[in-house]
């Protein structure tokens, strides 16, 4: 035994771990995004491929440059930058010029994530920061929608309802055969990925359930078609893939429920009374801003806490 002793590892307990890792979680999320990506390619054809590739490359390149500049270890392949890239692509119209998508993704990773210190430190969801930037910088290109398959210009179901009072069939909304951002149109594809993440325990049901449930209830209360509101716009994508972003949502179970419910309330305020037809990005971004506050005040009851004060 003696000869092996200098090499013994001295570290504190616990000496075993669950084997879970950041990249495993991130790649599971990417896998969950595949159905929605396939749906986008089906509906928007080669434009979808071009946008997804452009945004992914932009995300990785920006991540690399920033980590290099900051003298940090390069963690390009932990999957987090790829998720942001794909989500930015999912959040833009199919007709958006590629260079704009590229710039939007650079903003998402740089201003949305790296300036705060990289993964885990950003207060706002990077992809939504990118989308908000694009919407402000290129308002026309960001709201010029193309119809599935043929590429002709159309309006989104929410805009149609808001501006013209016409509704889109629920079945079309469910399968995604409508105008809209690349990855948001097919509720079916998003649900497949979302349910997979729920099953794997990589997202907390409280966020989508709180978010979608609130939208459902408020739609009924204000005399709107609740299913239409659930399926239209980016709500499904937001509820399963962006509001659930671990970094920018609360860490406690109760906090996540509050986060989801409040996002739902903000969304319905925007949709019913706001100037925009759609409010998913801003409802989530606003709640991202409240996350530190929620984490500060919503704490679990500590074991033995009640009786200690009794």
């Amino acid at each position, binding site marked *: 035994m003696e000869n092996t002793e200098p090499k013994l590892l001295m570290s*504190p307990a*616990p000496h075993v771990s669950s084997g879970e890792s950041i990249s495993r979680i991130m790649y599971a999320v990417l896998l969950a995004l595949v159905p929605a990506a396939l749906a986008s390619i089906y509906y928007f054809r080669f434009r979808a491929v071009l946008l997804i590739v452009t945004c992914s490359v932009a995300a990785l390149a920006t991540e690399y440059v920033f980590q290099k500049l900051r003298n940090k270890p390069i963690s390009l392949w932990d999957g987090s930058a790829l998720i942001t890239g794909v989500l930015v692509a999912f959040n833009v119209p199919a007709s958006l010029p590629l260079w704009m998508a590229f710039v939007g993704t650079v903003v998402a990773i740089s201003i949305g994530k790296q300036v705060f210190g990289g993964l*885990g430190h950003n207060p706002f969801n990077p992809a939504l920061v990118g989308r908000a930037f694009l919407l402000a910088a290129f308002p026309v290109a960001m709201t010029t929608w193309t119809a599935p398959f043929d590429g002709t210009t159309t309006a989104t179901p929410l805009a149609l309802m808001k501006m013209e009072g016409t509704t889109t069939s629920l079945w079309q909304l469910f399968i995604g055969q409508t105008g809209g951002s690349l990855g948001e149109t097919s509720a079916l594809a998003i649900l497949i990925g979302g349910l997979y993440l729920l099953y794997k325990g990589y997202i907390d049901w409280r966020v989508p359930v709180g978010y979608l449930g609130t939208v459902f209830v408020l739609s009924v209360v204000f005399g709107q078609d609740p299913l239409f509101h659930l399926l239209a716009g980016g709500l499904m994508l937001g509820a399963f893939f962006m509001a659930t972003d671990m970094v920018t949502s609360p860490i406690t179970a109760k906090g996540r429920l509050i986060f989801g419910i409040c996002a739902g309330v903000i969304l319905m305020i925007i949709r019913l009374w706001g100037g925009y037809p759609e409010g998913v990005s801003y409802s989530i971004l606003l709640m991202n801003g409240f996350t530190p506050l929620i984490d500060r005040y919503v704490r679990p009851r500590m074991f033995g806490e009640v009786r200690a004060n009794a």
Partner: protein
Amino acid sequence: MADNRYTFKGGVHPREGKELSSHKAIQVLPAPAEIVIPVRQHAGAPCKPLVKRGDEVLLGQKIAEADAFVSAPIHASVSGTVKRIESYPHPVGGTVECIVIVNDGEDRVYPDLPQAADIAQLSGKEIIQRIRDAGIVGLGGAAFPTHVKLSPPADKPIDALILNGSECEPYLTCDHRQMLEQPEAVVYGARALAKALDVSKVFVGVELNKPDAIAALQKAASGTNVQIIGLTVKYPQGAEKQLIQAILKREVPAGGLPMDVGAVVSNVGTAIAVANTIQTGLPLYQRVVTVSGEGIAEPSNFLVRLGTPFSELIAAAGGPKGTPRKIIMGGPMTGFAQHTTNIPVIKGTSGLLVFTEGQVTATEPGPCIRCGRCVEACPAFLLPVTLANLASANMLEDAASYGLLNCMECGSCSFVCPANRYLVQNIKVGKQQLIAKRRQRAS
């Protein structure tokens, strides 16, 4: 067996690894030629040696003790001669004064020990006195002197005794084997402890992954008031407060002790030690240790004399398999890494685990992605990530307001962390610093 009636909230499911040694009957390890007995064996005041170099000592002879109430005397585990008294590395870190005895191999028993007796012949007070004199401490690992638990203040009435046979730490099987091989001793010890506490509610909690032990105990306990409870398999089911919650459905107040809810918890191995000392008069001089891990050739359960060096245990278990990379005293969730095997078995040594490269690769912590797994896993319902951040930023009073001192250091948070962050590790340091700071301020 999906029985979810007896469990707690939070916790984790580490790979058990118990199959390596759970089928291995307890073997008696011959006493080594030389034993090394540290004068600090347990929580509480360290003992002072009562012998000096050159003294002849007999098996069971008291060789060290302390005046403080929260302490337990230490006895010679062999007969022989005191070779020297000097500092040795201690399994929980640092060095401690140790009494080194050269074994004469004759196991001559100290003549002035209490008579062998039976529970019926002894009063509760006498049982407690015997336990104290025998140096019995909690054998689950924490090694808290048992007689202290049995002497609660008058304003804390006790109505239930729980024996902890959950053995929730991975790899350890010493309690499992003892329950299986000596169920009568467990029940006898339980009855003795119940008499000392004057309680009629007596439970033995065993995780459902040990059905054979549950069956053996049920058989041994038939006709007594000792109830065997099958517990859901989850770490840390064996933590005192979680065990009380699971069985009695009572919540020990934060900062409080089991006696605040009328309960006393003791380990099954401790109950066997109590039974032994009553039935034979001998003090605590040996214990069962699991020697296991993927880096051990023949994982085993040994009955060993206190003071036996770890190297002897590893050799008796067929030696290492591959190159040892980490050696742990205790379980993998809360045990202590060892820098040498020239360290003796103490009263709190439940296991000795050897791992090779690959099983214990050192991983660098990554950034926290705020996934909340640590929050979900924490059985004390704390926010481990927040506590660890505050503790490492030295914001100790803020951490205290988040329940820093309520952490029982089970390690569930670090176990589940996908970024391998030092959660419980930072919390532990923060706790020690906070306690030291407050003590300093008070004085």
